[in-house]
């Protein structure tokens, strides 16, 4: 069962690579890290400071 699952994952990864190159993993990582770090910041750090402005003022 586990072997089948692993094989499916590997095969899917090969199929995925046929469409997307290694750059795809980089941009996914870039986007995911940014969102995670931003969420951590917004939830844990930002509430400690009154910024004096709101995101709605972003240009």
């Amino acid at each position, binding site marked *: 069962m586990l072997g089948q699952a692993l094989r499916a994952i590997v095969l899917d990864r090969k199929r995925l690579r046929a469409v997307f190159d290694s750059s795809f993993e980089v*941009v996914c990582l*870039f986007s995911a890290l*940014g*969102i995670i770090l931003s969420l951590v910041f*917004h939830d844990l750090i*930002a509430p400690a400071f009154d910024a004096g*402005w709101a995101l709605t*003022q972003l*240009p």
Partner: protein
Amino acid sequence: MAMAAAAGSTATAQASEATRWGQLLFGIICMVMIANLQYGWTLFVSPIDQKYHWGRAAIQVAFTIFVLTETWLVPFEGYLIDKFGPKVMVCGSGALVAIAWVINAMADSLFLLYVGAAIGGVGAGVVYGASVGNALKWFPDRRGLAAGLTAAGFGAGSAMTVIPIANMIQSSGYEATFLWFGLGQGIVIMLIALLLRAPQAGEVPAPAGPAVQQTRRDYGPTEAIRTPVFWVMYAMFVMVGAGGLMAIAQLAPIANDYKIAGIPVSILGLTLPALTFALTIDRVLNGLCRPFFGWVSDHIGRENTMFIAFLAEGVGIYALFYFANNPVLFVILSGVVFFAWGEIYSLFPATCTDIYGRKFATTNYGMLYTAKGTASLLVPLANVLTTATGSWHAVFYVAAILNIVAAAMALLVLKPMRIRTMARA
């Protein structure tokens, strides 16, 4: 044609001017259509709160979610746009833009409102990335102007619809406004998307003189982030972006400290209270400066233009610090600050594509564009300074210094690094 040849595709005849200006116009229209998702949001907050009493803070979380998804997913979306072309991606995102506001119209829980915001952010991010990316690809000879006009569409787009939206909220309720504007914006994007396409090799004209030197090959995203010059640009983007936001955040405290906020100021026949005047010209000048400085950079070079603009903003912030007690100078100098700030959205995409080529222009600029999100994270830390020092003075010094340092970096760091990187390509 070195760049086009580097793309590795079959060369085709050069496209007519009408074709590429048409592509630029389509991108600008798409940008106008997503502008309300960001700039029109504030109009809906109070009506939603009046109906459901969720509290403004909880409702504004939806906007934070929108900004996060709109900003940070652009690299991922940009990759798909570069891979599959703008037509299919923008068409799909038009549907997302419509779905987002239809969800908002029907949302009877905060969870649904947040889901709508996330979907809207994804849709808007694709449109932003595709429109700017397409402009960069079609106009290697006028990249600054093209990126600036497209970015200005995002800022200026809401100007046309703010009053109709506000009126419709009053007359028909916010739900109907979300529904019909959402459907309208989404359908326009989907129709325009059918006309969008990226240029094939040989379709774009050869870049102009040495002021806008172009790379000889296309860099993939992995290669781009491995070059130091990418991170220098990222740092400069954050410095200028955060510096401008810090200055804006302090406008109200300054006006209140000097007791000039309510003093009427008349400039060019328009009379408004000083603070309202300063905030009103924000959007106009911030939009105008994008194509203006982009056009300037096409003629005198990107780094030279960055030096002028960032220095002007740094000096403007510094001057505002000293002359803000005069209401007229407060309005004029805040205008200078706004005018010299928004060009980051035309100069950086143009520089990024000059260096890394057009094949992955959307992805590479998408990664650089996330500096906007990073800058917004840094701004609250400025309040630590205000709290520690007891006034806004230190924040102003920091904001001015950040811009002046970025200006110096443009000539002393970015320019030589960019030349070295291009020479190695």
